[in-house]
């Protein structure tokens, strides 16, 4: 009886430690990125947010479609990122394609850096306008980005620790692309 109790206590005490000492594999990280991409495709903010670490930061360099205007640069905390993920759920037409992925494990296998190229297609609502319906747009925006992320283990789960994204936007007339509603 005493031994069972001792074993159970030991198991509880070691639980969090196994999370900290978890050794990553390329396969784990690949599956994690697939999961993150699926969450983005569903545009369900809680799922997107749950994959970001407590101190997650996103740094974005964004070249808008008007190339004469210099790119914008912004840094988002996890809190702000999660808020924006909520806004993202308002989109009813969205496509995310991953074009490439390169995973490199750190020598201690505690973290990994992931470089991935994406192409996103979604409606372009003119800044400063308030669309009355989701149809109120004239162009699709195609955003090509190169994301460099660091992933690692937090509370026993794989999460994004940080992401740097270099993105470039082009516009395509509405009638040239058909995207399903979902």
């Amino acid at each position, binding site marked *: 009886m005493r031994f069972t109790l001792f074993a159970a206590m030991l198991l509880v005490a070691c639980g969090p430690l196994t999370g900290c000492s978890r050794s990553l594999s390329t396969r784990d990280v690949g599956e994690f990125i697939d999961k993150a991409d699926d969450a983005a495709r569903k545009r369900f903010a809680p799922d997107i947010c749950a994959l970001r670490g407590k101190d997650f930061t996103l740094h974005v360099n964004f070249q808008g479609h008007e190339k004469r205007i*210099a790119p*914008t640069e912004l840094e988002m905390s996890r809190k702000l990122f999660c*808020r924006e993920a909520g806004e993202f759920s308002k989109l009813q037409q969205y496509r995310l394609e991953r074009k490439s992925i390169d995973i490199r494990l750190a020598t201690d296998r505690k973290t990994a850096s992931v470089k991935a190229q994406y192409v996103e297609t979604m409606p372009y609502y003119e800044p400063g306008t308030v669309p009355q319906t989701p149809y109120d747009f004239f162009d699709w925006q195609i955003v090509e980005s190169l994301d460099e992320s660091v992933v690692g283990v937090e509370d026993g789960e794989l999460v994004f620790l940080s992401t740097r994204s270099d993105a470039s936007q082009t516009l395509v007339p509405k009638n040239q692309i058909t995207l399903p509603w979902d």
Partner: protein
Amino acid sequence: MRALAGPAMLLVIVGGFAISRMTSTEKAPSREFTELELAGADDDHTGSCYSLSTVLIANRAYNNASRTWTKPRDDAWTLLLDAVVQGHGGPVRWFQEFTFEKHAEQVRLVHVKASENLDSGLEHNIDELLEAPKTLQSTPVDRCLAPGATGYLFVPRR
């Protein structure tokens, strides 16, 4: 020995709770702080007739921004409103940071930090914050409920 197990467990739970309460930091100002009257932008700091909480609730426009309270020092709180807005060049960060400080029965706006394109002047920001409760005819603080009560930019309800 077994008779002591229950009280010992209780002691651990109560002790743990007390330690967590003592070590945890406040995440937002107390009601006592937010119920204080916001001072006006004039030199005399005339009361505006609206409590800080009324002013913040009336400014519902901030609902699109994430709100974070921090405590820079005793009797002062800083509210950070943070959002991402779509500009013609792409997404840009929009933020406003207001530091409020308690002075006797008032709370004063003592510092404003804001995105490049926004005015960070104290007078301008106080007037702007008071615009919403004025327009909505929000409930004033007790001292301004009496007929003939005056306050900074305050227009009594008819």
